[in-house]
C-alpha cells in the first residue's frame, strides 16, 4: 500500500510543508463551470500541522499567501 501525500492547487512546493486545508484531503474534481454562476471567492480555511490550528508556531494566521519563504517557521 502506498501513502499519498496531499495535493492542492493552493498549496504547492513553494509553500510551507506544514500548511494544510480541507481540499488537500478531499479528492474533488474541479467544478469547471463554477464561475459561470458566481465570481471567484475564497472560503478556504487553512491550518498548520505543527499547531493544528489556524495560527502558526509564530502566532500569526496561516494562509497560502503567508506560509512561504520569508516566514521564520516555514519548513520545506
Amino acid at each position, binding site marked *: 500500500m502506498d*501513502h499519498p501525500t*496531499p495535493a492542492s492547487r493552493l498549496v504547492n512546493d513553494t509553500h510551507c510543508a506544514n500548511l494544510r486545508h480541507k481540499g488537500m*484531503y478531499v479528492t474533488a*474534481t474541479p*467544478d*469547471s463551470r463554477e464561475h459561470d454562476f458566481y465570481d471567484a471567492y475564497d472560503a478556504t480555511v487553512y*491550518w498548520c500541522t505543527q499547531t493544528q490550528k489556524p495560527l502558526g508556531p509564530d502566532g*500569526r494566521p496561516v*494562509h497560502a499567501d503567508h506560509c512561504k519563504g520569508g516566514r521564520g517557521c516555514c519548513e520545506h
Partner: protein
Amino acid sequence: MAEARQVPEVAAPAVAQGNAAYAWPTHPTYMGTDVQRIDGPDKVTGRAKYSYDIQRPNMLYGRIVRSPHPRARVVAIDLTMARQAPGVKAALAVVEPNAILMFQGEEVAAVAAATEEQARDAARLVKVQYEVLPPLTSVEQAMSPDAPKVFPDGNVREGAAEETGDLAAGFKAAAHVVEQTYNTQVQTHVSLETHGCVCEWDGDKLTAWVSTQAVHGTREGFAQALKIPQANVRVITQYMGGGFGSKFAPDAQGIICANLAKQAGAPVHLMLDRKEEHLATGNRPSAYAKIRAGVSADGMLTAFDAQTWGTGGAGVGAGFPLPYIYQFPNRRRQHKDVYINAGGARAMRAPGHPQGCFITEVLMDELADLVKLDPVDFRMKNLPPDAPDARWRAYFPIAAKLFGWDKRHPTGDATPGPIKHGFGCSANRWGGGGRGSHAHCEILPDGGVIMRCGTQDIGTGTRTLVSIVTAETLGLPIDAVNTEIGDSLYPFSGGSGGSTTAASVTPAIRVTAVKALDALKAKVAPKLGVPPADLVASDGRLHARNDRAKGMTWKEACRTLGAEPIAVDGEWQPGLSASGTSGVQMAEVEVDTETGVSKVTRLVCVQDCGLIVDKLTAESQVIGGVLFGVNYALFEDRILDRNTGQMVNPNMEWYLIGGPSDVPEITAHLVDQPERGVIGLGEPPAVATAAAIANAIANATGVRLRSLPMTPDKVLAALEQQRAGGTR
C-alpha cells in the same frame, strides 16, 4: 515507507463521457431504489462502535486545560499538583510560557488519568498564570480605525476586488435600486459525536480510533505533526457521528492524546465535551454585505455593487460567493476577512454558499417586489441558461407545481389575526465531483465477497453504497457482500467532504467489482463452454447471456477457485461520475406576529445529484440538509460577550437547535440523471433553505428580515419598525 506520490487532479465534465468497460447497468436491480442502510440495525442496537465507545485494556482518559480568556499571555504553567493527583499517569504543557493565546478554549495543558473523573480533577489542579490581554470581540471592533492591532499582519485581510461590466451604465439602466445591508451569523458544527480519539502505541507504531471524515488524511496529519512515518500510523473510523466539514485532521486534541499515550505508556481516550466543541473545533464564519443593486423596469438585473466582510475568528475563510447564481451583467465586489479573538473557522457544509445564497435570494425578492413580479417569474428572467449542471429553469416550475406556488399571496398576508402565512423560494448550486478512490475485492472459494475501501461513512450511507454497487455488479443479494471501510490500512480513498464521496467511491467499487467478476468468469468459462465475454452474473448465478440454464450458482462458480481466492485491485476511472448539481427549494412558514415566533410548516426541495445510487439515503441527505438549513435560519447563533469576548452559549441549552416539533413536512423530489453518472449530494440541500424561509417570512409578515438567525426578537423589531413607518 513507500515513496510518497501526489494525487493527480483531473477535471470532471458536467455529463459523464461514458466508460464502456465499466458502464453503470442500464437495468439495475438495486441502484436507484430504496435500500435500507446496511448498518442501521447495528446503529440502533448499539452494536456499532463509535470512537467514543472504544475501550482498550488499561485505557486512560485524557482532559485538556483550555484558556478561559480570548486573548492572554501565558506567564507560567505548573503541573506539579496535577501530576500528584490520584490516578494521573501523564501530564504535559501544550504551550510554553510567554505564548500568546488568541481565542477562548485554546489548548494550554493536558492530563491523563485512570478515570474520567480523576482526569477532570487533575485538570483543575493544573496551575496556569495568565496575563489577560484585551481581545477583539466583534467585527465592528476589529474593523474600527482605532482598534488595537491584535494580529501581527493587521486585523483585516483584504481580498481581491472583482469587477465585471460597466457599473455606472448598469445603475443608469436601473428603474429601481435597493440599498441594504445583510448578514449571517457564526454557526458551529454541533456534530452529535464530538471530536476526539483513542490513541494507542505499540512501540513506535500508533493506532488511533478517530472521529474523522478522513482516515487517510488523519493518518497523514498524525505523521506530519508527530514527525513519524505515515506507515507507522493506522487510523480507524468504523462509525462516526457527523463532522460537517470540521473533522479532517487529528486536531490539537489528537496530537495531545497521542503524546499523553506515549508519556503514560497506555492507551488514552480523549473525546471533547460540548463546550469544547463550540469553542475550539470550528464554525461557519459570519457574513456581512452592504449592497446596492439595480433592476430595470421590465425586471432585468442591471447592476450589483457590494462591500462584504465576515469573520472566521482567529483565522481566514470568511469568503462567500456573491451574487449567487443570478446574472448581474455589471457588478463589483470588494471582500475583507476580519480576524477576531474567537475560535477559528473550518469548512462547513458548502462553505460560503448558504451565506451567499441567503444574501442574494433575499435581495432578489426585494427587487421582485419593486418591479411587482412574482418571485419565481422574476428569477426565471434572470437565471443563467439551462444546462445539465444548471437546471433551475426546469426545477422552478417543478417545485412550484409540487408546492402549490400559485396559491402565494403578494407580500404581506392580509388575512385577519396574528398568525400570518407566507411562501418563499430560492436556488442552489454545488460541484460534487469526485476522483481518486481505490478498492480491493476478494471473491472467496466459499462464495464470500469482501470489498475493502479506505473511505469512511460519516453518517451519509457510504457503507451501504459500497454494498449496493458490489452486489449490483456481481448479481448478488446486498447482504452477501462484506463491506469493509473506515481503516487507513485499506486502499486509499479521499476524505469525505465537498460532496465528493459518492462520486469518488462508487466508480472505484464498480471498476473493482467488474474486474473481480471478470477474473471469476475466466475461471468458470471453460467449465461452462461459454466465452467469458458471454457470461453474466444475476440473481446469484453466473450464466450465459442468452441461455440462463447454461450456468451455475454463485457458490458453485466460486468453488472452482479451489484454495486460491480472487483478489483484485481497482480504482476510480473517468466516465462514471460528473460534477455540478442544481436545486430549488420552496418553503411555507407560519409567523405569530404577537410573539415573533416563526415556524416552517412545509418545504419542497427539487434536487439533482446525477445517477442516484440509493434513493433512500439520497432522500435522507436532502432531509438532513433541509433541517440543517432550518436551524441556520431560525435558531443557531454563536454569541460572544461584547466586552469579554467569551462565548455565552457554549452548550446545547442556549445554542439553539430545532427539536422534533420544528421539523416541517419535507418533500424531497430527486431528479435522476443516469446519463451524467454519480455526483455527490451532501452539501447542496443545505444551501438554499434559510433563504427560502427568509423570503417566506417576508411574504407572511410584509417585513423584511435581512439578518440570520430570524429569531422572534428580530421579527418583532421589524414589525415594530414597520408600524413606526421605518421600513419600506
